[in-house]
């Protein structure tokens, strides 16, 4: 029943919030050859440019932390003390919204300087960002997740990591990854990537049978080389031209967008774990999965957060860029599979922010 209610809530949110995102994506896309206007109020709800320099997270994309809707957007122990000095901050960060920046910087005209300085390269691509009308809510959820990470998930994961050897934890991660096969398979089918669907099926069969239920990974690159398809349902919608909508930080699940929330819902329905009994079993299993995953990447989030003046903005922008890159990469992959001159997807590439 709880699952049903959660799902209904997600669907209602999805159904009701499609319009704003279209505006956001088209606005930024249209501004590719023109200066992007920054909000004078410094409210990051508005569209704003972000640095095209990859963030620490972007340079090491990990679907399990930034992109994934797991509770992975936690923060550093002492964010302010770790913050990079303002002179080193990316130009795209809006000073007025950064709690770590002295108050005087908000009023000394520095914002205007940023506005006038920011000129995208000729013919360059618009930087990825996300419309964020729910920023107050999102920031609150960000802090909730942040505290959950530092107060609960991280200590538990550290203890777990000290008790359980790394190979065992990797095996557990393999097992859950294998369980997520239906999402990847369906995504491949929806993307008309039948080759990927076949590979994914082969991978599932091999890992389930000869990987002892998925704990081992005989399909890995070093063995049979049946790579896992880097696909999800949100990406599938993006390939079909649906923009991200607006940014939303889900409690426990982390950063997402309206579009990528479909992925959360899809994963919920397609995961065998969701159908365990009694009712608390799925939560318990997912909690364990989160602990196991976190134990394998402790420090990633801290590094991202520590390098940011405003971790919230950094994570949001990293999320936007990561999702955009993932969709673009997939589009290129799908285009390569086509005979020359054919158009595979019903929408053109670059129709908006992914």
């Amino acid at each position, binding site marked *: 029943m709880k699952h049903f209610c959660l799902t209904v809530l997600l669907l209602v949110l999805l159904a009701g919030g499609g319009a704003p995102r279209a505006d956001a994506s088209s606005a930024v896309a249209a501004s590719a050859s023109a200066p992007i206007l920054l909000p004078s109020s410094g409210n990051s709800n508005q569209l704003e440019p972000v640095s095209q320099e990859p963030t620490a997270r972007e340079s090491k994309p990990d679907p399990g932390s930034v992109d994934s809707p797991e509770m992975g957007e936690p923060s550093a122990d002492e964010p302010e003390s770790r913050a990079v000095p303002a002179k080193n901050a990316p130009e795209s960060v809006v000073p007025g919204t950064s709690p770590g920046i002295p108050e005087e910087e908000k009023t000394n005209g520095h914002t205007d300087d940023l506005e006038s300085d920011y000129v995208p390269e000729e013919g360059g691509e618009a930087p990825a960002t996300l419309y964020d009308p729910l920023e107050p809510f999102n920031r609150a959820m960000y802090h909730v997740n942040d505290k959950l990470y530092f107060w609960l998930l991280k200590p538990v994961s550290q203890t777990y990591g000290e008790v359980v050897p790394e*190979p065992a934890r*990797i*095996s557990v991660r*393999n097992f859950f990854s294998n369980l997520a096969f239906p999402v990847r398979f369906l995504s491949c089918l929806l993307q008309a990537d039948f080759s990927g669907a076949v590979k994914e099926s082969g991978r599932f069969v*091999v890992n389930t*049978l*000869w*990987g*002892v*239920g998925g704990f*081992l*990974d*005989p399909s*890995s690159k*070093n*063995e*049979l080389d049946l790579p896992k398809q880097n696909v999800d349902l949100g990406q599938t919608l993006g390939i079909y031209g649906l923009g991200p909508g607006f940014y939303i930080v889900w409690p426990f699940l982390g950063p997402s967008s309206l579009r990528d929330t479909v992925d959360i819902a899809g994963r919920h329905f397609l995961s065998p774990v969701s159908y365990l009994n009694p009712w608390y079993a799925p939560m318990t299993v997912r909690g364990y999965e989160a602990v196991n995953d976190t134990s394998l990447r402790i420090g990633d989030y801290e590094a991202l957060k520590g390098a940011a003046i405003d971790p919230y903005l950094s994570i949001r922008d990293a999320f936007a860029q990561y999702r955009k890159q993932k969709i673009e990469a997939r589009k290129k992959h799908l285009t390569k599979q086509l005979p020359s001159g054919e158009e595979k997807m019903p929408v053109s590439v670059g129709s908006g922010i992914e």
Partner: protein
Amino acid sequence: MAKRLMKFLGMSFLVVLFYVPGNAAAGGLFGPPQSLSREKGGLNTTVGFDYHEDKFESDGTCVFRQNRVYSQVAYGGARHLWEVYGRIGIADLEIEDGFRSRINTTTSSPNDFEENETPFGALGAKVFFPLGGAFGIGAFLQGSFFFGDFGDEVRGHWNGAPYKAELNVRDLWEITSGISVSATVPRGIILYAGPFIHYSEARVTSSRHISGIPLLEEDATVKNKTEIGGYGGISVPLGRGFHLNAEGRYSERFSVGVAVTYTYQNRGL
């Protein structure tokens, strides 16, 4: 040298056979004596199916039939000299004429005991001594235990009155040990054969004791009738690290199994 080796092998086999405690069983194929792991040693995993028949006796004899499906993880040492493995799987059980009455005053339906999908596990180890380039001799010890009970219901008439009884087969376990010689022929095909000894028992309990039906007359422990048998098989490389293994065994009844093994080239994670 070869004589000393054979002596060591024989002594080791006897030690393993008679002094190592534990439950071992024919919960699947025995496989070739050498490990199928890579030359340097490492993991291999197997998926197998085994059709197993055995005669059990307590007060009379009955035939146990089982279909077993299992998944195995094994770690083999360098140069294929040793291997340890564990299996988990599921098995059914059919006891032919398990409910058949031997007297006219008792009737029963059905006549066969049938139960599906009981989990089992097995542990085993094998050692191998190469004799020249193509031949070798090895020994194994393997034990299985069925974690769940097998149960089935029977109805009928006993002295004119209807009855219903439930028969449970509990704590079925097996231990098997054997030696085999192997020959590696061209294309990497391995042929192997040898004798084995096998012991298996289970506890049979009934919710109601019915005269005329041996398994229902009283609670008892049943044991396999014949403890010696022979087996032989073939292992064929399929490419990309896969091997197909087919094996037959005979000990009062004939059993057969097939398995596909994957040999990891790396750590497997």
